[in-house]
């Protein structure tokens, strides 16, 4: 596992406070900078009436992490466990 992804995982283990969300967003930005996407990867899910986007471009994940505690929890489940 890359160092950047390990840091992202660590950042996502926290409770979704504004500070933790900011730290996770920064960790995600660093991960993306070290792994620049080749095309337009988009994180998707098949949830219904979710309080977070079910399709979000990977490059937009840091911004959503900062803004949306529910998205933080969503990514926390996927990546942070």
């Amino acid at each position, binding site marked *: *596992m*890359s160092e950047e*992804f390990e840091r992202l995982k660590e950042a996502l283990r926290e409770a979704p406070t504004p500070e933790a969300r900011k730290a996770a967003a920064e960790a995600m930005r660093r*991960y993306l900078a070290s*792994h620049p996407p*080749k*095309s*337009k*990867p*988009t*994180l*998707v*899910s*098949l*949830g*219904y*009436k*979710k309080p977070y986007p*079910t*399709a979000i*471009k*990977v490059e937009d994940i840091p911004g959503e992490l900062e803004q949306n505690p529910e998205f933080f929890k*969503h990514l926390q*489940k*996927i*990546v942070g466990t």
Partner: protein
Amino acid sequence: MLTLPLHDLPVRSASGFLIRHVLPRSFPPQLLGPADRREPFRILTIGDTIIGVGHGSASEFCGHYDQVIMDTLLIPDVRGKVVVLISCETAQALGPKLVEKGAASYIGFKEDFVWVMDADLASTPWADFEYAAPVIMPVTNCVNAVLDGKTTGEAFGNLIEGLSENAEVEEDELVKSCIEFNISNAVLLGDENARVRARPPMLLPFRLIPPPPILLPVRA
């Protein structure tokens, strides 16, 4: 019965793989795109399988443009059927209810079903080998195992095995996390020895030639 909505990126990606690898060998009714609505779903109850892609929650499963086509309060005639729902959370309440109402077997997910897809391939989602295929191809292979006449236990085993193999070799850590998350949330309920009559394999032309691009608009 096959339900394949096409209105947004997640359903387009998952439905696309089933259009490429399952649709040509399945029998009607096939509710594709705008036809994937509540009324035809309720009326067309023939067949021994319900294989559906759609947004979902613990108790609801949706069709095109997220019209709820099935929920725990109104279950169609599922007696003896094998149900595969490629959706989120339906294993929490809807799946158990389907089995309670007589479905032979149910395969689905108890949490979000997640993956990464290439939005540039929205009109030819089956060509997304790099991002979507590591998650969606094992699901497609699971559905095809059911249609091959294998037991749902064997089909579910194919799903977990396929996802696990892909997780092992996946280099993209976000994709790998999605695969592992889906493995931990995949569920088989009901009779694991249930099976349906085997369908013929896909004809050679369909195997060689991909479908035409999907030209329906994608909701932002």
